[in-house]
């Protein structure tokens, strides 16, 4: 094992570039999947005729497919259907849609957990359905969703490594190139990359714990 060669300045810089791409990818996908996930979750909660059913079926299919398949499909299947995406955006689209499907389930059950009595009280006090949703159900529900949503974000960050199959230059891809130099640096490189992922995710989970324990 050769830690010196594995952690040479060139290799470290190259891995950091990969980490930068991983973080960019995760950030964009987190924002998009949160927005889309909330919208889908509310649609499913609100029981809009036809639409809620349709969204429900779509979410069910996407949730139950491997993300690896979705990423590959977004990159090489969609173009056959006329939608061309660069590796970065293919990864974004696949990650956002997949994680949004997961988040929509969290949002829906979070909203469902808001007690009937609370809702009825709000309506009785003269709030419209829309107002009740905005001022009562969403704030209460969202607070309860914070922990599962954050762990979904951690999953997302980990899942960005799957973009390796579409040759996107993120952390795992760059690690593969570094590991190609010599067999003796494979294990040191893997350990470093694992540590990088761990550090980012652990930081994220600490932030989440802070949020959770914040007085409501």
């Amino acid at each position, binding site marked *: 094992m050769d830690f010196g060669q594995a952690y040479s300045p060139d290799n470290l810089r190259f891995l950091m570039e990969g980490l930068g791409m991983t973080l960019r990818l995760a950030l964009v996908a987190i924002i998009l999947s949160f927005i889309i996930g909330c919208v889908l979750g509310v649609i499913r909660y609100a029981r809009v005729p036809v639409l809620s059913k349709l969204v429900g079926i779509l979410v069910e299919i996407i949730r139950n497919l*491997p993300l690896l398949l979705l990423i590959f499909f977004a990159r090489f299947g969609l173009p056959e259907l006329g939608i061309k995406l660069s590796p970065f955006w293919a990864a974004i689209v696949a990650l956002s849609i997949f994680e949004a499907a997961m988040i929509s389930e969290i949002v829906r059950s979070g909203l469902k957990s808001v007690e009937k009595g609370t809702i009825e009280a709000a309506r009785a006090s003269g709030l419209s359905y829309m107002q009740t949703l905005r001022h009562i159900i969403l704030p209460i529900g969202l607070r309860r969703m914070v922990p599962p949503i954050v762990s979904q974000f951690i999953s997302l960050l980990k899942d960005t490594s799957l973009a390796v199959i579409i040759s996107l230059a993120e952390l795992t891809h760059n690690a593969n190139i570094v590991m190609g130099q010599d067999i003796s640096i494979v*294990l040191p490189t893997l350990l470093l990359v694992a540590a990088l*992922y761990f550090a980012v995710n652990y930081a994220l989970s600490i932030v989440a714990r802070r949020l959770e324990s914040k007085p409501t």
Partner: protein
Amino acid sequence: MIDLTVLTEHWESYFIGLRNTLFASLMALAGSFALGTVIAVFRISPIKVLQACGTAYVELFRNIPLLLVVYMFFLGLPALGIALNGFVSGTLGLMVYTSAFIAEAIRAGILAVPQGQTEAARSSGLTYVQTMRYVVLPQAVKIVVPPITNQFLNLVKNSSILGVVAGLDLMYYGDLVNADTYNTVDTYMFVALFYLILTLPLAYASRLMERRFARSG
């Protein structure tokens, strides 16, 4: 619209892939259930060292991508003189990774049984083992089964990682079929269909159990 010959000319590849995916998932499930139970017991044990080990294990594997864990088995272990093929490394990686999540589910299930019940059972003369057997575990199982079914579902989906290390699973064979047909959309449509055949019943079962246990609990 969909070219059925993709399926008819390569059904054997799809079938072998599907079988291996199922096989890898079942083995990893059995392994991760056993390992996860041990880790969960560690985490709730009164012994500080065991607790710390359990916590470290869970935190470690929950925060590292599955692909990295599989690479560790596939590319990392050979540096220590242990060479495993893609299927075995992939399955082991899946097992270790999933066990962290299963450990958490089991721990949550056990902790969800109110402390008062244990105390009541103990004071009415039951031993610790009897209390676990007749009071705590039956209740914990109800809480634990739905999330574990869910983990199994994740496991089946995650097993597609085997495709990246030549692990002979459905995803891997899908790639081989694609290299032959050049028809990406249809080839992977069928791959998707086969995954859904495995995962949709699991998703349904998980929801059904959640509802039933919620009612009876």
